[in-house]
């Protein structure tokens, strides 16, 4: 309270309230924070999806592609075959449909190939020499990340060409070989050395250990599992992996008119749809029922559209060969839900017996790594090379990634594993690993409740167009068409940009106390004025994308 000793002042005001400190009122203060988007958290290779989508929105496609390339050297591949868990976790899925991240990745990546954009130059160094055994997606991803960190990398590949399942597994109608070749070629231009037609065995391993600072084993899972009824030699029974390998090498095997594919995963679908394109009548018999098939939903749907018959929840009990044809006695089954994880225990449903007649059986019930060459010197568990969280095997300097060390058999998982292995190898060789992820780590991804959907008018999601089933099963042309540039623009707009501030200024506009100011140096951002912020949280509520959070203030 003022003490009156002065002359009577007039009762007119003499100044402004901005000298008052209302910051002392608050018990919470907002903070702009770069937080992981759920898509990034779900992405097996940790892609900064919100960042490259924003770059795409701005029309800066090359920048978007470079952001993709930080974590993934094959976006044209993943843009076609990835099982897109990003879309499954997309916050927009709760609203009007997930963002079409996969299709947009494809659009940007194809543009990169079209424009001939090159990968960034690797760091200098060549102080460490690393051998990567296996030229599939895991091995190539590991090689790429190491090469970008300045390592001298050599990839050893058993087959004549690099690519692994990309080249020799996934059929051309899902993944054109030309795309694979061009992305690998672009990758090799960074200076990765290769030795194809080379199989590494136990003995070679010891030599490699002398010549290289570290080794990464990425030999995949090329050994087909065979159920007991179908092991042994019968020309009418084919192994699915071999079948695809042959077709991808243009050695079309001879098939009877009726083909039965046994298995419910992606490989089984690939096999079935390939056989269909070879003009055959195809049925697929799987233990799991339709909703539980390991194959992607789209793959199953497309297979059915192409005229493939699905016999789900069934298994073969008896096989009889007659007149060069197979007569199979089958039963409907349910899978025992009490079985341990990863183990399929079918229970026959009584009274559901049925007969199948077919000329060729192709088995695609799973695959294992070929461990014969390594099992003496490296720990093995559950038919996999055993690794820790850093992709390290029990033996110093030897790491593993991809299908050889994991049962999560997705291309994106392989790429992610390869990246993790590269980081670990670098840490092993140099004592430290360089940071790569954009800093949005260690915090929870933005949940959908924090998205303010008022700011997002409903816009429908657009699916990739598929070619008419009648047309597409006639050959191996790509089944799904990429977005047009116009569609890409519209669909990219749908990204909420969860946790990534886009400088939309909502926080600035919604402050009743003008306590948020816009800074422009060194780059556009915001500051909270300590003297005024009352901690009401309007800015947090009005942020469309959860890029600002309230933090408790302790006094």
């Amino acid at each position, binding site marked *: *309270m*003022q003490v*009156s000793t002065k002359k*009577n*002042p*007039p*009762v*007119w*005001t*003499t100044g402004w309230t901005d000298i008052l400190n209302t910051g002392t009122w608050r018990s919470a203060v907002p903070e702009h924070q770069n937080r992981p988007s759920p898509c990034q958290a779900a992405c097996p290779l940790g892609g900064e999806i919100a960042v490259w989508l924003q770059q795409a929105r701005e029309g800066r496609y090359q920048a978007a592609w470079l952001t993709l390339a930080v974590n993934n050297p094959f976006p044209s591949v993943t843009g076609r075959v990835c099982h897109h868990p990003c879309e499954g976790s997309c916050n927009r899925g709760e609203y009007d449909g997930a963002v079409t991240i996969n299709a947009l990745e494809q659009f940007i990546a194809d543009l990169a190939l079209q424009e001939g954009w090159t990968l960034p130059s690797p760091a200098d160094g060549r102080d460490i020499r690393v051998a990567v055994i296996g030229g599939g997606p895991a091995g190539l991803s590991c090689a790429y990340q190491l090469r970008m960190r300045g390592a001298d990398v050599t990839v050893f590949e058993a087959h004549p060409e690099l690519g692994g399942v990309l080249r020799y597994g996934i059929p051309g109608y899902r993944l054109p070989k030309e795309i694979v070749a061009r992305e690998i070629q672009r990758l090799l231009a960074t200076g990765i050395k290769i030795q194809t037609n080379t199989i590494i065995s136990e003995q070679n391993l010891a030599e490699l250990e002398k010549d290289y600072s570290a080794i990464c084993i990425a030999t995949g899972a090329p050994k087909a599992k065979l159920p007991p009824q179908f092991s042994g030699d019968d020309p009418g029974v084919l192994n699915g992996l071999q079948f695809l390998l042959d077709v991808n090498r243009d050695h079309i095997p001879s098939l009877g008119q009726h083909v039965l594919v046994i298995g419910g995963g992606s490989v089984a679908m690939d096999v079935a749809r390939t056989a269909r394109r070879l003009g055959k009548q195809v049925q697929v018999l799987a233990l799991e029922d339709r909703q539980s098939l390991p194959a992607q939903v789209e793959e199953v749907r497309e297979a059915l559209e192409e005229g493939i018959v699905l016999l789900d929840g069934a298994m073969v009990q008896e096989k009889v060969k007659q007149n060069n044809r197979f007569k199979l006695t089958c039963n409907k089954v349910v899978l025992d839900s009490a079985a341990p994880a990863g183990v399929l225990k079918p229970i026959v449903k009584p009274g559901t017996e049925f007969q199948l007649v077919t000329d060729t059986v192709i088995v695609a019930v799973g695959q294992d790594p070929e461990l014969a060459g390594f099992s003496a010197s490296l720990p093995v568990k559950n038919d996999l090379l055993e690794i820790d969280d850093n992709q390290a095997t029990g033996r110093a300097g030897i790491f593993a990634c991809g299908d050889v060390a994991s049962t999560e058999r997705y291309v994106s998982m392989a790429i992610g594993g390869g990246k993790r292995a590269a980081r670990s190898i670098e840490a092993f060789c140099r004592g430290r690993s360089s940071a790569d992820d954009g800093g949005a780590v260690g915090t929870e991804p933005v949940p959908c409740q924090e998205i303010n959907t008022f700011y997002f008018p409903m816009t429908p999601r657009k699916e990739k167009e598929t070619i008419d089933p009648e047309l597409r099963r006639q050959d191996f042309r790509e089944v799904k068409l990429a977005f047009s540039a116009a569609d890409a623009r519209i669909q990219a707009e749908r990204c909420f940009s969860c946790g990534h501030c886009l400088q939309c200024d909502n926080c600035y506009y919604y402050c009743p106390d003008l306590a948020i100011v816009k800074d422009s140096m060194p780059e556009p951002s915001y500051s909270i004025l300590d003297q005024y912020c009352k901690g009401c949280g309007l800015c947090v509520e009005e942020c469309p994308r959860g890029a600002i959070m309230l933090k408790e203030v302790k006094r």
Partner: protein
Amino acid sequence: MTRMLLNGNHAAAHGVRLAHPKVVPVYPITPQTPILEKISEFQLQGIMDADLMTMESEHSAMAACITASLTGVRVFTATASQGLMLMHEMLHYASGAQTPIVMCNVNRTIGSPWGFWPDQTDSLAQRDTGWIQYYCESAQESLDTVLQAYWVAEKVLLPAMVMHEAFYVSHALEIVDIPSQEIADAYLPPFNPPHRLDPEIGASWGNVVDQDMFNRHRETLGNSMEAAVEAALEADKLWKKLTGRGYGVIETYRCEGAELIIATTGSMAGTVREAVDQMRDHGVAVGLLKVKLFRPFPVDLVRRTLDGVPKVMVLDRNFAPGTGGFLHHELKAALYGLQNGPVIHGYLAGVGGTNVPPVKITGLAQEALEEEPTVLSVWKG
């Protein structure tokens, strides 16, 4: 100068015209309506450049006066009785804002019950609102006092009301000298207050102040009100110089050697003048004390005037329950402690508009000379 036959209302209207107010919020009520009607005519004729605001109530009329004045222009309005009552909140607001508004209030009885009769209670009941108050007995005086009121109000920065009674003055015709515009302009400087609502200045007015500030502000108002006596005397002196007409803040008539002085305000003073002449003719030593400036009450002047006078008879055409006659009340307070002060008879005469002719006054004077006074006011019809 023009000479015209005018009633009190129209005379006041001419006074207002000469003062050039820029904004005139109006609301009709008997018996002041002719003031505003005349002003409307002047405006329509183009001889008065004022913006008339036809408000929907007196309260709003005063609200608009305050803000227009605070924006820095001269304003005017008029009212009476109920209208003044309705304005009561805003009267306080106006003086608190130190806005030099001039308002004519035609004294009329206040309801309930209804009446339209001359009675000064309406304005006297506002004596605490911080407004300067003048009571006029004639049309001429009203015209002259309007201009004096602007002079004083703008000098001390307090609002001022100029009273004349319903019908006795408001509607009665007399010969009035209307000064020229040149004289009025020479008399009243333009109004240009340094503190005002103006984006160029940017200061704001009126929000909650703390106790200390409030206390000091009230003291400021008190000081302004005290300064108004001097200012009023000055204003009157100047006016006399320019027009030959002066009224003082009080007027004494034939008070030399008076045994009894009759004190009153407003039109009653005119009737008392007659009564005094009659009584003097019969050898009774009586005189008239007319109080023109009621607020601020010219305490020193009144004390000096009544010092040594044996008796005073107050005639109040006004009354408040518990207070009695207002002039009676003020005089008792003003004369407190005066060693040789008079005894005071407070007579309520004319309350509610009853007729008080000279013969009644002489009768009352006789009573006052003979009887002992009472502390409280006495009803004399």
